[in-house]
């Protein structure tokens, strides 16, 4: 097995024991990227020199007994909508081609302070708008399990890189499922923390009341380690949560004995693949066998969550993306007046999905329609929060499939925006409520494509979420690897 296939925890153990160096580990990861990138295209930028420099510096620290902690020397990847000082950041859009940020995002600062080796910037749907990574202006990422299929999205590059071994872990952003859905489709773990737990400072904004940064990794414990590194209060993000941030490690070994696990009635049935439902049912039975009490819950408003989401997210996006106007950064198309320059710049710089959502959001916020669409959607959001809260009176966590289907083929949903949007039907409700959720791989379908199970918890309930996720991971014993991993 190549070092590139180690979990973060195991790699950290070997670094600590002096069995390997960070340069060994980083070279193994870069070598894997060299082998797979032409086919997978996980990365938009690989910072080979910067990564090897960081790795050497990590080894130097360690040799002097000054290692910074469990992530010191570990190669990780960042979705390319997180600002990295001195390294091009594009959000997979033409409008930002060549842009080099003058500052680091909060999460990037945190990773650097922890000694992590930043391998590069991963591909995404332009401005994180999409569920397949096909909306990237720089070409799609492919799924390491089957290169005719999408990796999911929008954090498709971050998920595929972790699955393929071109990073040991990565960060993504999740606005409607953009960490969890690609994690499920690529057979890795993905976490959307409680809204406000991870600072959005330096994350290129899509929908500010929904966006949340989180980790993707090969194990629940690795994801826990990354999350504990990046979360915490940051005064530069006015929505950052100022309260307590508990240590999560102990929760992973607690087991589910006596816990109440709710199965959401609305997340199943028509449109759900049989293999997905079967894998989830099998896990539920095993959880019951491990001592959990299984209860049925109903969240009726979940059925209109998609509608509310596709009003709120585009509305916020239309406001956030107004800043890309050819004035302060990015590319410009000349015009005789400022307005003409802006309108031409935006028409040339944004791709079709981004334009579609900007137009949708602009319409939903425009005079005469605000109350009927955006205002109403924000009220539906409150209803959804109330229903989730009621469900958490009878259950400690809720579980569901992460995605109704396994990875679909490239091109299958591109021309039908609504069918693409339906990819997120299980994941987006908790973006509206702000609650945390995690996707854990639990099996494969007959074709060997991974299936993810989602564990949702009440706001600030990361401890019980990780407790159940760790048990799901033990019970599922998912150890399949994508075929590309075998080639090395």
């Amino acid at each position, binding site marked *: 097995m190549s070092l590139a296939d180690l979990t973060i925890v195991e790699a950290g153990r070997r670094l600590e024991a002096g069995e390997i160096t960070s340069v060994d580990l980083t070279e193994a990861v870069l070598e894997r990227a060299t082998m797979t990138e032409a086919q997978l295209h996980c990365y938009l930028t690989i910072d080979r020199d910067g990564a090897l420099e960081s790795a050497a510096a990590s080894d130097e620290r360690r040799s002097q007994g000054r290692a910074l902690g469990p992530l010191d020397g570990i190669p990780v990847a960042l979705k390319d909508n997180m600002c990295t000082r001195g390294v091009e950041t594009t959000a997979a859009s033409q409008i930002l081609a060549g842009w080099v940020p003058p500052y680091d995002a909060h999460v990037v600062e945190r990773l650097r302070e922890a000694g992590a080796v930043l391998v590069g910037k991963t591909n995404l749907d332009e401005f994180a708008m999409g569920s397949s990574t096909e909306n990237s202006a720089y070409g799609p990422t492919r799924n390491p399990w089957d290169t005719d299929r999408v990796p999911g999205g929008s954090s498709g590059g971050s998920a595929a890189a972790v699955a393929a071994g071109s990073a040991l872990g990565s960060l993504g952003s999740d606005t409607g499922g953009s960490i969890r859905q690609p994690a499920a489709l690529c057979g890795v773990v993905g976490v959307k923390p409680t809204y406000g737990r991870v600072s959005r400072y330096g994350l290129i904004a899509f929908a500010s009341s929904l966006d949340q940064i989180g980790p993707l990794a090969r194990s629940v414990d690795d994801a826990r380690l990354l999350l504990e590194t990046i979360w915490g209060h940051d005064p530069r993000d006015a929505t950052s949560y100022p309260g307590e941030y508990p240590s999560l490690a102990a929760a992973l070994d607690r087991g589910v004995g006596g816990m109440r696990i709710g199965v959401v009635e609305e997340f199943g049935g028509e449109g759900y693949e049989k293999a997905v439902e079967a894998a989830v049912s099998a896990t539920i039975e095993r959880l019951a066998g491990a001592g959990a009490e299984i209860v049925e819950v109903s969240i009726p408003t979940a059925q209109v969550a998609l509608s509310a989401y596709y009003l709120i997210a585009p509305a916020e996006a239309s406001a956030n993306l107004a800043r890309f106007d050819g004035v302060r950064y990015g590319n410009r198309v000349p015009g005789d007046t400022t307005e003409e320059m802006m309108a031409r710049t935006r028409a040339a710089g944004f791709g079709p999905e981004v334009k579609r959502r900007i137009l*949708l959001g602009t319409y939903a916020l425009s005079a005469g329609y605000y109350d009927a669409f955006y205002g109403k959607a924000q009220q539906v959001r409150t209803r959804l929060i109330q229903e989730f809260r009621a469900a958490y009176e009878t259950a400690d966590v809720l579980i569901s499939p992460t995605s109704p289907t396994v990875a679909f083929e490239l091109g299958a949903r591109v021309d039908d925006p609504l069918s693409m949007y339906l990819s997120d039907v299980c994941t987006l409700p908790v973006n509206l409520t702000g609650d945390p959720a995690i996707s854990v791989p639990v099996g494969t379908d007959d074709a060997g494509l991974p299936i993810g199970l989602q564990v949702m918890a009440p706001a600030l309930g990361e401890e019980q979420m990780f407790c159940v996720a760790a048990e799901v991971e033990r019970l599922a014993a998912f150890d399949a690897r994508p075929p590309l991993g075998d080639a090395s």
Partner: protein
Amino acid sequence: MPVDIDIAHVARLARLALDDSELEIYRRQLSQILEHAAKVQSVATDDTAPTAHPLGLTNSFRSDVVQPSLDRDEVLSQAPESQDGYFVVPPALEVDG
């Protein structure tokens, strides 16, 4: 119920210079998406307040302490056009004569 959209007006508000065939494609797609999105109107919400922040945080201020700013030259180096420490844009106001 199909939603009728003045797409040229919306595109102008959004500062997107689109040609007629693009406008027609987006008009059709938006109409379809909005028809689905209009399902929110089926939920009774008369006595329900809208949600902005899921945890209900309001008025989060940082302490009023001077912090270093971004380096001006580094910022301007990324602008399409700049001069004497300013961003440069084409004329924003119409001038008669």
